[in-house]
């Protein structure tokens, strides 16, 4: 049985339709990358999978239930947002919130919960700074802790929304490797939203490409081609392979991408 089933999903805001008749299923251990330019509904799709946004049509089933009923078992890694420097919260506390932050009261940390937090911190290689205030850590360290927080409740599904944004290449690879290790060891499927396929290209199973008004799903070799993307955008798009990297030329936000890359 598929872990996640998405049936005929549609999302419209007034007259504007982001996607129509979107259907796919996620199997155990599968990594799906969600690609596409800004404003095509990548983050909205994540919010629908979390049960935070009602789709205009269609439905999402996670392990046979509506998303809201499974929300405590979904690991969520959002876009990196830096913590306030003075926040009185250690990495250890941040991870623990992923375990029992939704429960009422102070709550005494039981021994097995404490051990669970400790082992996840070790798993992501964050044990050395687990007792430092999170606001004083680097962006890469904070993002490792967020991965640990997503893993601590033993999720049945991991949703990552641009988790690599504003990380340098080494930390990008670390985060991808950590999530990849989890799905290989525990079979947890991952939905990975990213504007750049290259950091996950070596490990991704399928790609969902959301273009303005249309979408395509398949293996990277099926979707990341000049023919498919030209069909999606309705204009001439070139997909080049340069030294193992995928380079897309001619999309509307192409200019922007070049600008960002020159900025580095």
């Amino acid at each position, binding site marked *: 049985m598929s872990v996640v089933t998405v049936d005929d999903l549609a999302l419209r805001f007034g007259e504007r339709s982001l996607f129509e008749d979107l259907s796919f299923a996620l199997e155990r251990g599968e990594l799906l990358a969600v690609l596409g330019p800004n404003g095509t509904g990548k983050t909205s799709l994540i919010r629908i999978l979390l049960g935070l946004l009602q789709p205009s049509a269609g439905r999402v089933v996670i392990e046979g239930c509506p998303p809201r009923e499974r929300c405590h078992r979904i690991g969520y890694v959002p876009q990196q947002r830096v913590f306030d420097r003075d926040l009185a919260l250690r990495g250890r506390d941040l991870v623990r919130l992923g375990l029992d*932050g939704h429960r009422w009261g102070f709550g005494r940390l039981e021994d097995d919960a404490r051990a669970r937090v400790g082992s996840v911190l070790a798993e992501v290689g964050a044990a050395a700074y687990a007792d430092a205030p999170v606001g004083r850590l680097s962006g890469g*360290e904070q993002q490792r802790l967020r991965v640990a927080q997503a893993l601590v409740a033993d999720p049945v599904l991991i949703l990552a929304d641009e988790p690599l944004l504003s990380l340098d290449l080494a930390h990008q690879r670390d985060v991808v490797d950590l999530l990849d290790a989890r799905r290989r060891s525990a079979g947890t499927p991952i939905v990975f939203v990213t504007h750049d396929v290259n950091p996950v290209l070596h490990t991704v199973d399928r790609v969902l490409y959301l273009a303005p008004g249309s979408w395509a799903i398949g293996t990277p070799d099926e979707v990341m081609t000049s023919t498919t993307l030209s069909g999606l955008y309705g204009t001439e798009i070139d997909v080049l392979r340069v030294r193992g990297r995928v380079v897309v030329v001619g999309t509307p936000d192409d200019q922007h991408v070049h600008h960002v890359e020159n900025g580095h």
Partner: protein
Amino acid sequence: MFAQLLAQHFVHTALWAGAVVAIVSGAIGVFVVTRGMSFAVHAISELGFTGAAGALALGIDPVLGMFGGSLLVGVVLGFLSLRGRERDSAIGSVLAFGLGVGVLLLSLYHGYATEATNLLFGSIVGVSDTQLRNLVIVGAVVLAGLAMLYRPLLFSSVDPEIAAARGVPLRALSVAIFLLLALTTAEAIQVVGVLLVLTLVITPAAAAQRLTGRPALALVLSIAIALVSTEGGILLSLEKSWPTSFFISAISFGAYLAARIFDLWCGRQNRLSWSPPRRLWAVR
């Protein structure tokens, strides 16, 4: 003279009232600071003043008016649950208008001007036994609320997106914290006055944050700093007849400065102890 005053009943009442207000303010302050709600505290207290001025004009107990004004604003701000700049400008606009109304209401009231001064700058020594009892009841309600909401409140304060994904009801919590804050503010006004509420709700928590990274310890330290400031301020004002509010704000500000210096001094040592893993990554 100091010993004589210390034996007086009204001084005991003041010390107890100060302790209650300090504990409640110090506790909620930690969440207020984490959620970046300092400006909202100021707005709630100034509109508590408007409520009290209205009550004076109507000839009823100003404390009731104060609770009314604070709660009304608290509920409105809680429901709006705005973030960032939008929230600041909304609060600023509401606050300015509320104060304007307060000035009008005060001009309609032809009683003693000391009532208004007491509201603005506090009058801890004027607390009656009945008022003390009410302070204890309201304080207990706030503490019970904070204890019950502790984990989801902490979660939604540090990481609203993930908390929402985990099923934490953000809006309901926002309304709840604003309500508890309105009750706390109306309490603190009676001790330090409208203009100095921040000295008990913000300063101790801001100092505590600089001293520790542990959320529970920050809570304890914040309460401790608020307690020392309030009780110390009351005792000092017995010795030297300057306003109590001045001493309270001076002690809590002193604690804040000391905490910042402590943080600066520790910063280097901490950085040394955390740097090895970071350097290893860079090499790899």
